[in-house]
């Protein structure tokens, strides 16, 4: 469905990416997802952000050492959050500006909100120029504001222009265009927009 926050997130990411080239900026982030709750732990999320940074500039030596050390331990173990955060903060500080986008924060397990937000605040303390873009259901706003009191909130509501373009796109794809007249088409768009403004 195109009128969701997820649509907005992907648009924002691409728009940030377009400018990233000239400004030497790194855009990293993640789409949280109900279906991936088990996998999307704070550790894996921060690891994924670090992975994106590493994909940009190459693997630093201290990361190779940490990997080798972890593998040598009994059975090999995954990275710990504290170690990942250390490496992530070093990586972010080494780039002029990093933009972090986390979509649908509320689709993570609720008990992880504070851990994720705390990690982001940690990054911001170290690199105050970092920009953080978050989306989520309205109730998550309280959590976000607890960690970042000056958060700017933009409500995403169905916008009449967005809906008009979407309806027109759907009408263009109608499988029986001969059954459609200009009057009918205009009526469909008008009625849908009226119904939405009454909600």
């Amino acid at each position, binding site marked *: 469905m195109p009128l969701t926050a997820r*649509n907005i997130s992907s648009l924002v990411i691409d728009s940030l990416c377009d400018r990233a080239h000239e400004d030497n900026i790194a855009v990293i982030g993640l789409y949280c997802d109900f279906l991936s709750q088990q996998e999307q732990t704070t550790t894996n999320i921060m690891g994924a952000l670090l992975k994106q940074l*590493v994909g940009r500039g190459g*693997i630093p030596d201290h990361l190779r050492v940490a990997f080798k050390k972890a593998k040598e331990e009994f059975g090999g173990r995954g990275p710990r959050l504290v170690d990942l955060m250390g490496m992530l903060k070093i990586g972010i500080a080494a780039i002029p500006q990093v933009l972090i986008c986390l979509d649908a924060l509320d689709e993570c397990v609720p008990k992880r909100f504070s851990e994720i937000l705390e990690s982001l605040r940690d990054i911001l303390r170290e690199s105050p120029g970092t920009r953080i873009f978050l989306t989520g259901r309205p109730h998550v706003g309280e959590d976000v504001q607890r960690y970042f009191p000056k958060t700017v909130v933009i409500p995403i509501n169905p916008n009449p222009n967005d809906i008009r373009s979407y309806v027109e796109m759907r009408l263009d794809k109608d499988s029986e265009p001969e059954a459609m007249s200009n009057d009918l088409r205009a009526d469909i768009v008008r009625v849908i927009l009226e119904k939405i403004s009454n909600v």
Partner: protein
Amino acid sequence: MAQISLNIGDGNTSCGNIDNCFNSFNSFHISDEDAPIMRWLSPLEPSNRHQGVRTERFDGVGNWLLETSEFREWRCGEGGADSAVLFCSGNPGVGKTYLR
């Protein structure tokens, strides 16, 4: 695998530069030797997910957000750490039920 990844990156005209981490993970060449390190860091593949979301995206929707003064000011970052966070609040599927 490297070849497939490169193709994904090449098909992405608006974001095809190395500075773009959302894209560069796909296009940056990670050697076979380094692949286990990347897997160790995290099993998540956010760049692949982004490719999926953007292909389903309906273009034009949400452009208004990029024009808001809130977004522009956040992006410029002149307020420093205080204005570092922008939160877009909305219900997923908003609009969906109305259009069904």
